[in-house]
């Protein structure tokens, strides 16, 4: 195993994540690169006349972070076993990635702790700026920089500044357009306030006035790059009023609105677009389905489900590009557009290794400036972890186990529920749990940790409901979160069954008894979408628990039995 210094300077047989069509072919190209250096990471076989640069789901991470990709990411129905529903060794095999390599660390969960110690943190807005500047230096008149949303939420400073920190830093990088999801959890007034001053397009062709069913935001923005007319159509997260508190944006309606997407594509073509790009927060499976049904989209820059794929998934003539999350990756797509048609493309998922890519000085200064008022709180040490703390995965993650333990202990409940969010950073064993780290996993505008009584039947109904949001075989009925995490209770899930019959053997762990549908249990949780939910903020609950424990240790969670894979 190389240490980080060797990794930086020694010859490694793999350099960058460089993709062309078809699983497996990119590795051969990557292998041609000898050194893992900034130049290697940025090396790109420039082609054509249009360059798309895509970041998405940064979740307000200004600084480099650790983020462990999921070890469990199941697909059901037609997408079973297809990317992104491939993890671990299967993923490495599919894309021909060498175990232990930088790419394996960036894209997989296998051997995560050791590799994280070798290869270090990823992301950071100042590193993203460096990559962006380098692409723009070469392709000034050809480049579009597009942000897939979930940019403003997910950190202590974004919460404290109501996203002003992210807006200022992103503005300095001069995006050409963005779409949205968690942005709306700051409330409609704040969104409008920011969007009014935004020096680029805030697109959402599927955002409508709930009363009049009229478009509430711009759908499409037309650009000219390299002499080519490029239409960018925005698609916000379709299920905002279902998955997030509707009362925060009561007059807006979202939805997939496939017919509307088709109309907007047709309109863009009629207006002379030679390339149509869907800047989407649909989630991967929804976008894959949409690519097969809506005609005339050349590229879907997908977001929401946080998948990072080193090659595009191609549906018909549409490239579906998945650029990861938390600033870990930046995608570059070069298109050769001739006579209103894409004749060829090159793609590279650029991993933002923060120890390899030099920070852009101006952006570092800006990031430090927006964080400066909060440095003391950010760095406050609450305790330490003996275990890897991570969130991603379909059923559980150790960070949510910690949150559930804290809820059961501090809120004196039988059972705890933690939403299956996909955002939140990773902490390595032995590291301090700071306020910043805790907020990376909990920061939101509806943090109340409730405590209520629920019947066994209701708990079952909730689990069935959430499971169907994740495992409905029709992607258009999926919401893109992971399964709700449950503490104090075990259960069995058959992902292949229909709603109402997936969940069984619900067991109260402290007694080993089966959950009685008629009996009442004390349940605590957080992030309820209901207005007026009472309780202390979840970060205070967890902070108190960590301070009492001083050092937390999480044992592997075996309380969920999964069938039907």
């Amino acid at each position, binding site marked *: 195993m190389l240490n980080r210094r060797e990794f930086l300077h020694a010859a490694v047989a793999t350099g960058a994540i460089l993709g062309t069509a078809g699983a497996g072919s990119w590795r051969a190209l990557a292998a041609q690169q000898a050194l893992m250096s900034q130049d290697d990471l940025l090396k790109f076989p420039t082609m054509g006349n249009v360059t798309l640069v895509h970041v998405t789901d940064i979740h307000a991470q200004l600084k480099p972070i650790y983020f462990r990709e999921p070890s469990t990411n199941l697909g059901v129905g037609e997408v079973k076993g297809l990317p992104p529903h491939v993890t671990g060794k299967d993923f490495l095999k599919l894309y021909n990635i060498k175990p232990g390599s930088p790419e394996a660390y960036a894209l997989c969960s296998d051997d995560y702790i050791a590799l994280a110690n070798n290869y270090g943190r990823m992301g950071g807005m100042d590193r993203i700026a460096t990559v962006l500047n380098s692409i723009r230096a070469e392709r000034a008149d050809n480049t579009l920089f597009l942000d897939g949303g979930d940019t403003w939420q997910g950190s202590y400073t974004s919460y404290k500044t109501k996203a002003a920190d992210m807006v200022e830093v992103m503005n300095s990088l001069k995006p050409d357009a963005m779409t949205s*999801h*968690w942005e709306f959890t700051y409330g409609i007034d704040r969104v409008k306030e920011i969007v009014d001053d935004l020096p680029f397009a805030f697109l959402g062709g599927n955002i409508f006035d*709930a*009363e*009049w*069913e009229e478009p509430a935001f711009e759908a499409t923005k037309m650009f000219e790059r390299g002499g080519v007319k490029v239409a960018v159509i925005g698609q916000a997260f379709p*299920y905002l*009023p*279902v*998955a*997030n508190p*509707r009362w925060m944006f009561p007059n807006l*309606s*979202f*939805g*997939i609105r496939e*017919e509307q997407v088709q109309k907007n594509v047709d309109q863009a073509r009629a207006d002379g677009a030679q390339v149509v790009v869907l800047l989407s927060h649909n989630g991967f499976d929804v976008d894959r389905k949409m690519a097969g049904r809506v005609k005339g989209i050349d590229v879907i820059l997908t977001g929401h489900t946080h998948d990072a794929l080193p090659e595009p998934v191609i549906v018909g003539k549409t490239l579906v590009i998945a650029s990861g999350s938390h600033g870990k990756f930046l995608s570059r797509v070069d298109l050769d557009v001739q006579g209103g048609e894409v004749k060829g493309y090159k793609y590279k998922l650029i991993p933002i290794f923060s120890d390899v890519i030099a920070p852009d000085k101006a952006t570092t200064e800006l990031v430090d400036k927006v964080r400066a008022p909060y440095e003391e709180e950010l760095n406050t040490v609450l305790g330490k972890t003996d275990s890897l703390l991570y969130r991603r995965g379909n059923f559980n993650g150790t960070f949510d186990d910690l949150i559930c333990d804290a809820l059961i202990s501090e809120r004196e409940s039988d059972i705890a*529920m933690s*939403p*299956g*969010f*996909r955002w939140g950073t990773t902490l390595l064993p032995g590291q301090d749990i700071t306020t910043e780290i805790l907020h990376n996993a909990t920061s939101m505008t509806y943090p109340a940790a409730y405590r209520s009584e629920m019947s066994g039947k209701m708990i079952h*109904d*909730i689990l069935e*409901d*959430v499971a*169907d*949001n994740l495992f409905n075989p*029709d992607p*258009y*009925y999926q*919401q*893109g*979160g992971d399964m*709700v995490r449950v503490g104090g209770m075990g259960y069995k899930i058959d992902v292949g069954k229909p*709603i109402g019959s997936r969940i069984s053997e619900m067991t109260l762990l402290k007694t080993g008894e089966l959950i009685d549908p008629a009996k009442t249990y004390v349940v605590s949780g957080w*992030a*309820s*979408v*209901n207005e007026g939910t009472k309780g202390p903020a979840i970060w205070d609950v967890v902070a108190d628990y960590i301070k009492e424990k001083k050092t937390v240790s999480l044992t592997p969670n075996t309380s969920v039995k999964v069938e039907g894979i």
Partner: protein
Amino acid sequence: MRVTRRQAFGLGLGATALILAGPATLPAVAKKAETADDAVKAFTGGAEAKSGKISLTTPEIAENGNTVPVAFEVESPMTAEDHVQEVLVLADGNPRPGVATFHFSELSGEAAASTRIRLAKTQNVVVVAKMSNGSYYMDKRLVKVTIGGCGG
């Protein structure tokens, strides 16, 4: 049920006559709390309802089960010889499946309407169109009504 002013204007262009829900105004078939299948049979007189011609728009997942937007358009030349006469809208999982019957004529120009309906739980919205030649067409779409609250 609520039809906004603008939707009412929109409807006015397409439908010369519009009878909105309220079980009392529905055809006799839907007065009793019959199943949606019974209501369809009564509407078609037992004739087979074919698929096609109807484009039905609903959200996949309801944002608010109390007011779910539903829109349909039936493909037809809308001439004296060949037009859509009636369109029955049902919610097959509601305690009373009957929602509305829309009446059209060759003067309607198009057989299209939109409204909002209440859905008690996850269920199909069913639309059946009666054509002037006595044939029937049917379409349905599943609308999920979730408990919500754990996505993202």
